[in-house]
């Protein structure tokens, strides 16, 4: 038990949770309107799209890859789904299926390129991001879609929780289950920790990569759908640049850019931390131009904390043997 407690104290998540609570306490005192349920729901709903994207990116990062194209995939599949819904009306089940399907297909393209070209994922996904966004704007001539079906614009809530928050929770829960409780998740951790070992142990590395990038794409598709639902329109340029917010939240949540490390809990805390900061600062009347610098500083602090805690030799393992 003591062992478990000390490892909890060492963990990135625990430190992050303390910081989140401290900041929440600070804003509760300093920012009027912060500690209300309405504000809290608002805050979560505003970050739901980001959270769904983050679930996909987290899986990619743990596997040792990176997906810069997630926001672009979200934008493209969002537009495709909207076109389908406008044409055939459809329903939620169809919309979710289409969104995840388009996204997964676009994401799988990344995996195939990475595999075929043996190129670094960061380069491949920057290329596909640029390509997807550019083609989207070019083919749509930048025209937004407004005439979405009526059923799609009705605000739904599940047990009092707005749909975007419920979706984000479901997606994050499913991701946590996949990572921790399914063999596939263990293989993903293994691949990120030591790709050569994974290959030697008989993992189907190509198949794993198709899954990982396909999963990230599917999450992006769902995120795009939720974003369209929230704003009741589909603008081709709406999601440009969001990939960096996602990356910031996931890295802040303790996922390693070198692979093999990351948790859903940490990612959630990363998202909540950034959301609270922006929300609280807004309520306090701080200029929104400063948010970017706050985010940047936080990421640097988080990296510093991680490297300090890893620089210390961890004596626990030495007793073994």
């Amino acid at each position, binding site marked *: 038990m003591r062992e478990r407690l000390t490892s909890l104290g060492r963990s990135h998540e625990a430190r992050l949770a303390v910081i989140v609570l401290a900041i929440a306490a600070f804003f509760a005192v300093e920012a009027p309107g912060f500690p209300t349920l309405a504000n809290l729901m608002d805050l979560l709903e505003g970050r739901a799209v980001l959270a769904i994207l983050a679930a996909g990116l987290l899986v990619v990062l743990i596997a040792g890859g990176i997906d810069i194209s997630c926001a672009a995939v979200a934008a493209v599949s969002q537009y495709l789904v909207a076109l389908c819904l406008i044409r055939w009306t459809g329903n939620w089940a169809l919309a979710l299926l289409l969104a995840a399907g388009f996204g997964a297909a676009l994401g799988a393209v990344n995996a195939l390129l990475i595999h075929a070209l043996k190129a670094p994922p960061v380069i491949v996904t920057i290329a596909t991001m640029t390509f997807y966004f550019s083609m989207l704007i070019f083919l749509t001539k930048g025209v937004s879609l407004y005439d979405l079906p009526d059923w799609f614009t009705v605000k739904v809530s599940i047990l009092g929780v707005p749909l975007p928050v419920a979706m984000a929770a479901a997606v994050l829960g499913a991701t946590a289950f996949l990572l921790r409780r*399914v*063999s596939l998740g263990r293989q993903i951790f293994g691949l*990120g920790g030591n790709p*050569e070992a994974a290959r030697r142990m008989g993992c189907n590395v190509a198949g794993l990569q198709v899954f990982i990038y396909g999963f990230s794409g599917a999450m992006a598709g769902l995120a795009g759908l939720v974003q369209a639902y929230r704003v009741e329109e589909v603008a081709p340029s709406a999601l440009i640049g969001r990939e960096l917010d996602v990356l910031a939240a996931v890295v802040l949540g303790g996922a390693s850019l070198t692979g093999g490390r990351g948790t859903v809990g940490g990612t959630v805390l990363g998202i909540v931390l950034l959301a609270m900061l922006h929300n609280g600062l807004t309520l306090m009347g701080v200029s929104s131009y400063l948010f970017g610098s706050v985010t940047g500083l936080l990421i640097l602090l988080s990296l510093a904390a991680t490297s300090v805690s890893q620089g210390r030799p961890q004596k626990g*393992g*030495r007793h073994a043997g």
Partner: protein
Amino acid sequence: MVRPLVEMLAIRRRFGGVRALSGVNLTVLPGEVHCLAGENGCGKSTLIKILSGVLAPDSGRIVLNGAEHARLTPAASQAAGVQIIYQDLSLFPNLTVEENIAFRRHVGRAGRLVRVGAMRSEAQAAMARLGVSLRLGALVRDLPIASRQLVAICRTLAADARLVVMDEPTASLTHQEADALLATIRGLRAHGIATVFVSHRLDDMMRVGDRVTVLRDGANAGTFAMGDLDRGRLGELISGRRLADAVKQPLSGSAPPALEVRSLSRGGEYEGINLAVRPGEILGLIGRLGSGRTELALTLFGMNRPEAGEILVRGRSVALDSNRAAIREGIGYVPEDRLSLGLVMPQSIAENTLVTVLGRLCGRLGLIDPQRRAETVARWMERLQVKTATAERPVMELSGGNQQRVVLAKWLATEPRVLILDSPTAGIDVGARAGLYRTMDELAALGLAILLISDEVEEVRHQAHRILVMLGGRIAGEYSPSGITDEQLREVIRA
């Protein structure tokens, strides 16, 4: 006659125009410890890869447990109970001990749920069979290398290994850790699990092996019962030549020392060290890990300051407060851990060789003169016989022996007067060793003073003119190589 576990007969394999294996036989019996010995490039790894099913032979027969495999796949090899532990161990540093041991459960069954209890009992069962105890929840990256090796062995047991192939398992271990590993291998034998032990270390092979197959230039030099060989004979079989058995005599004359140390002490590391090494002399400093030998070497190279005492270079007292100061005084140091201390692995041989002498290669304008650069590199590559097509290859692509020579080249390029060699032959093969010894003798003949630090008795006794024994941070005695036998020296350092 027991049925062999593995029979590989007349295995041939070419890579392009190069013949890697020309008709090699290997027979492993159930439960035996079978050593596979040979110099770098003799075909050991190729043979192992063929046994693992990763590589197909051009011709030859492979019979596992009596069943002939026309085309052996990795899956078939593993199904027959063959498990390979590569030198890098191929563990997952970010996963726990139990997850690593039971990782195979997750492969090929992507949709299956993780059963923590089953995983744990599988890991525990494997550890119990091996008689080791590791904390199941510890992350592998937090474990010392020796424990990681145990995890790798447990993993093969969890996969129902009948034969564990270990590639250079003791190369990265200290002597105590290697002892423990050899005991573990004997434990596997007691469970009826065979081991193929691939190694450069003659002593380790002598101690653990039942039989040994020696490969030379892609062909069998023979398979022998270990009891029929002695160390010297095994070395000869591997290298194909007779190793010098002569020992050196202490130098005569009274030339002043190139490097002298008086009452040097550093708390907890070494105390009251007196030694002197003269130009042209190889002074052997023998001591086990933890005797303070490496700490002393680091001080002599300016890496950590002594707390008391004096260091004299050519009779003049000097303060070596940095390695740059040591280099200025003409002291070169080839570290024990050549991989982490001596080389910039991704950079080329040339870059690594020249890093110590960049200043001297500058022409006008302070730019590096390409011709002088090329000449310097070529001179040392030739002198040290580094086998490479081009000096622009990254050092990490070289074999261990060649890497060691590049480290040596790097220091010789500074044209030092004193060279400190810390365990220079750790992890390199017999032939490369002989080459290094020859180089060492040549350098001494040129007037270099060499301090040879090692824990290998034969090496020190055959290479040095004089021997100092270091025990618990102190110099415990001085010997002339002809005045003591290998066995006596071994006893002294174990005291």
